[in-house]
C-alpha cells in the first residue's frame, strides 16, 4: 500500500536507534560541529569502540545550537538521562568510552542532562533518571530562556535517517492533513496559528496560501527559499542539516493545501551538507511513498527537487529567485504581478514561496493546532523565531525564543553579554541591511513591528552583537560596502545611491567630511529606502539611518565644522 510502505516498522526501528538497549554515543555533526573538529571526534570514537569491542552504538546528530561549546556529544545509557557533553576533543574519546562502558559519563565534559524530551507532535522520549550531579538542561542559562519548536529535533535525531524522524512523530502531520483534512481546513489552521513568513517580511503565511489556492491553472508550485545570503546567518542551514525531513513534511502539507504538484528548494551551492542531507531525505521519503504518486493513498501527487543557487544575495528576493530558477539573470521585477498570481510565479504559474523556517513550522501547527501555536509569542507575532546570535557576544549560537522576547533576554541572559568581558554597545538585527539598535532600547520585544519602529528589520533572524570598541560609522560603511557589491544594478537609487553613500562614508571616515555631508547622507539614505525597486535597496540604508539616529555623536566627531 502506497504511503505506508513499512512506515510503522520504520518508526519502531527509529525508536530503537534513538533509545537503544545499549549505550549510544551521538556526535553533533552539522557544519558548525564539523568545523571545530566534530568529524575527527567521531572517527576517533569509532576507532576506540572498534578496538575495545564494546557494544556501544555510535551515531551522528545535528546541532543543538550551542556553537560556543562545540563539538557537542550526546551520551545515552539505557535507563539513564541523555547527557550532553561539550567542548569534546579527540583526546577525550578514550575517557568517554571508558566511562560509558562503566555506565557513567565523563564528568569534566558534561554540560547538562535531559531525562525526557518533548518532540511535540505527540511524542515524548523518556530517557531515564540518574546522574543527579549533572545539572538539568533547564538550568543551563543558554538553554533556559529558549523554547524549541522548530529546533525540537535538532541534536536529538540522526538527520540522515528517516526512521528517527518517524520515531519522533515525523510525517504524522502530513498524514493528518492529507487523510483527515481538506485543503481549506489546512489553510484555516495555518491562518489560526498566525504564522508569518520567517524570510524577513513577516507576511501572513495562511493568507499567502489562500491567495494561491484561489488561483486557477494547470499547475502550481511551492518553493522553499533556502538562499540564506545574509553573512552571519545560519539558522536555515542548521534547520536543513539537522532536521531535513521537517522541511520536506512542511512542503508536502503546503503543496496539498494550495494544490501544487511540484516543489522546489532553492538552495545556495555554498551549503553542500544541507544539499546532501536534503537529497537523502527526499529520496528516502520517495522510497516510502511520502513523495511521489498517490501519497497516503489520497490520490495526491507531489514531488520535490533541489535547485542550487549561484549565491547572489539579491537572488533571495522573491521575483529574482524565480527569474534565477527560470535561467534568467537574478534581477527583481516590480510587483504586481505577485508570485501567487497566475502569470506571476514560476513559469507563469501561481507559486507559493516560503522560507525554510516558515515551512518547518507547518507540521507542528497541523499536529498541535493553530490555537496551540498562537499561544506562543505575542498576539500579532506568534510562535518562535530562531536567531543566530553572533559577533562580540560571549555565548555564540543559535537561539530559539518566542517572538516578543526582549533583546535584553537574548543578549544578556542567553548570550551572557559581551565576549571577553567587554560591554555591549549595540546589536544589528536582520542581516547586512538591518539597523543598529543601541543598548538603551534593549527592553524592546523582538517582533516584526517593534523592529521596524526602531529602524531595523527582522530579516532572516541574524543578531550581530557589537561591543564598546566598535566604531559605528565604520560599521555603517562596512554594510553599505556589502550592499553596494550585492546591488543588481537595475534601479538607480540602489545602484548609484549606494555608491555615493559609500563615497560619503569613506570621506567622513577619512576625516574629510563636512557638516552638510551628513545632511546629504541622510537625504540620500532616505531616498534609497523609499524609492528602490526591491527589498535590497529598501533596507540597505538602515545601518546608516540608525547609526545617524542613535550614534550621531560619532559622525559629528568626524566632520569639520
Amino acid at each position: 500500500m502506497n504511503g505506508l510502505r513499512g512506515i510503522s516498522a520504520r518508526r519502531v526501528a527509529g525508536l530503537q536507534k534513538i533509545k537503544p538497549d545499549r549505550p549510544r554515543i551521538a556526535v553533533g555533526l552539522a557544519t558548525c560541529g564539523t568545523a571545530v573538529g566534530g568529524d575527527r571526534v567521531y572517527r576517533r570514537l569509532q576507532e576506540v569502540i572498534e578496538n575495545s569491542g564494546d557494544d556501544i552504538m555510535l551515531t551522528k546528530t545535528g546541532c543543538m545550537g550551542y556553537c560556543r561549546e562545540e563539538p557537542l556529544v550526546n551520551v545515552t545509557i539505557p535507563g539513564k538521562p541523555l547527557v550532553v557533553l561539550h567542548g569534546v576533543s579527540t583526546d577525550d574519546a578514550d575517557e568517554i568510552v571508558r566511562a560509558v562502558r562503566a555506565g557513567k559519563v565523563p564528568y569534566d565534559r558534561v554540560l547538562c542532562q535531559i531525562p525526557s524530551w518533548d518532540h511535540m507532535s505527540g511524542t515524548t522520549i523518556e530517557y531515564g533518571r540518574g546522574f543527579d550531579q549533572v545539572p538539568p538542561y533547564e538550568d543551563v542559562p543558554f538553554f533556559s530562556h529558549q523554547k524549541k519548536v522548530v529546533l525540537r529535533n535538532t541534536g536529538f535525531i540522526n538527520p540522515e535517517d528517516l526512521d528517527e524522524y518517524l520515531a519522533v512523530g515525523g510525517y504524522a502531520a502530513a498524514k493528518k492533513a492529507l487523510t483527515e483534512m481538506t485543503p481549506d481546513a489546512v489553510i484555516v489552521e495555518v491562518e489560526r496559528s498566525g504564522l508569518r513568513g520567517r524570510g524577513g517580511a513577516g507576511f501572513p503565511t495562511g493568507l499567502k496560501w489562500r491567495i494561491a489556492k484561489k488561483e486557477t491553472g494547470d499547475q502550481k508550485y511551492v518553493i522553499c527559499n533556502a538562499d540564506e545570503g545574509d553573512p552571519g546567518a545560519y539558522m536555515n542551514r542548521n534547520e536543513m542539516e539537522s532536521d531535513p525531513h521537517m522541511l520536506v513534511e512542511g512542503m508536502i502539507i503546503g503543496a496539498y493545501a494550495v494544490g501544487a504538484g511540484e516543489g522546489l528548494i532553492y538552495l545556495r551551492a555554498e551549503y553542500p551538507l544541507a544539499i546532501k542531507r536534503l537529497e537523502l531525505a527526499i529520496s528516502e521519503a520517495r522510497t516510502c511513498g511520502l513523495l511521489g504518486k498517490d501519497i497516503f493513498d489520497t490520490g495526491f501527487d507531489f514531488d520535490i527537487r533541489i535547485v542550487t543557487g549561484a549565491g547572489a544575495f539579491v537572488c533571495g528576493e522573491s521575483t529574482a529567485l524565480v527569474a534565477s530558477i527560470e535561467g534568467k539573470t537574478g534581477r527583481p521585477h516590480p510587483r504586481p504581478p505577485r508570485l501567487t498570481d497566475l502569470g506571476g510565479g514560476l513559469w507563469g504559474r501561481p507559486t507559493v514561496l516560503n522560507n525554510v523556517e516558515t515551512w518547518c513550522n507547518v507540521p507542528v501547527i497541523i499536529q498541535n493546532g493553530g490555537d496551540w501555536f498562537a499561544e506562543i509569542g505575542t498576539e500579532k507575532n506568534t510562535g518562535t523565531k530562531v536567531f543566530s546570535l553572533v559577533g562580540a557576544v560571549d555565548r555564540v549560537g543559535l537561539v530559539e525564543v518566542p517572538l516578543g522576547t526582549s533583546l535584553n533576554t537574548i543578549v544578556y541572559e542567553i548570550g551572557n553579554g559581551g565576549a571577553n568581558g567587554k560591554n555591549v554597545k549595540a546589536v544589528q538585527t536582520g542581516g547586512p541591511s538591518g539597523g543598529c539598535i543601541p543598548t538603551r532600547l534593549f527592553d524592546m520585544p523582538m517582533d516584526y513591528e517593534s523592529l521596524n519602529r526602531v529602524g531595523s528589520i527582522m530579516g532572516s533572524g541574524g543578531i550581530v552583537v557589537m561591543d564598546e570598541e566598535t566604531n559605528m560609522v565604520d560599521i555603517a560603511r562596512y554594510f553599505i560596502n556589502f550592499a553596494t557589491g550585492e546591488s543588481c544594478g537595475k534601479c538607480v537609487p540602489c545602484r548609484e545611491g549606494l555608491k555615493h553613500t559609500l563615497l560619503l562614508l569613506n570621506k567622513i571616515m577619512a576625516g574629510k567630511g563636512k557638516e552638510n555631508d551628513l545632511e546629504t547622507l541622510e537625504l540620500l539614505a532616505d531616498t534609497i529606502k523609499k524609492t528602490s525597486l526591491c527589498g535590497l535597496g529598501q533596507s540597505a540604508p538602515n545601518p546608516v539611518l540608525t547609526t545617524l539616529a542613535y550614534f550621531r555623536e560619532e559622525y559629528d566627531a568626524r566632520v569639520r565644522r
Partner: protein
Amino acid sequence: MTYGEVGRRDQPEKPITILINGKKCMAREGEIVLSVALREGVAIPHLCYEASLEPYGGCRLCMVEATDHGRTSMTTACSLRATEGLEVCTDTPEVVKYRNVLFELYLAEAPKSETIKEMAARYGVTKTSFLKKIDIEDALGGKCVLCGLCVRVCTEIMGAGAINFINRGPYTVVNTPYFEANTDCLGCGACANVCPTHAIQIEDRNGERVLHSWGGIKIPLKRCSSCGKYYTPEALAVSVQNTLMPPIRSDLAGFCPACRAKKCADMEIRAHMKTEGEGNHV
C-alpha cells in the same frame, strides 16, 4: 500576451475614472497609470517605460503618491494599475523631494546627457551634489542611464539578444559580450531608436551599418533591386523574411519599401483594371 493582460484576465475591460492631480481621467480597469497620465497630458518624468514592453520599474522617476481605498503609498506609475476611485498625485512634497535626489543621481551618472539635463531642469534640478562619473572609454559616451530599453527591445521584440547588462551594481554597463562585435546583431538599430538619451552611436557608411557603441559591429546593407539604394541591413532582411508568416512574396522581397509600395500599387491597379474589364466586382 503581456502580463498586463494576465492580471485582469477574467474581468471585462470596463471604463473607470481615476483622479490624477485632482483631474478626472477615463481609464480602462487595470490600465497602467503612467499611460493614462500621458494620454491625458499629465507630465510624469520617466525613462524606462515603453508601452510595448512589460513594466520594468528601473528608473524610479515616475514615482507618484497613490491612494487606493484609503491607503496611501508612494509607488511607480509605470507599475501601478488603474482601479475605480484611485487617486494619484504626481507632485506631493515627498515625491518632489525624492525625485530631485534621483535627478541628481542621474546628473552624476550620465553627465554628458543633454536629455537628462533638460529633463532635470524642467523639474528645477540643475546641479548635482554627487561626484560625476567620468569614463573616457565609455562606449556610450557618458550618456547611458541603464533604463534597459535597448536590451529589452533587442531581446524581447527583435529576438536577437545581441546586447545585455554586464557586471552588476554600480559597475553595470550595457554592451555586447566582451564588448566585441557579435553575429547576433541584426543591425536593426531599434536600440538606438528607443534610447531616451541618444547614447547609442550607429552610422551607415559605404554600404554597411556600423554599430560604434557595440564593439564596432558591421552589418552589410542591402541594395534595392529596383532603385539600387541601400535600404536595410542584410541580416535584418533575412530575419524578417524568416519571421513573417507568410513571408514577403519573392518577387517583392528584394525591393526597398518605397519601390515595394510603388510595385504593389502598380499591381493593384493592373488587377483592378482587369477585373473592371470583366465586370466582376468583389
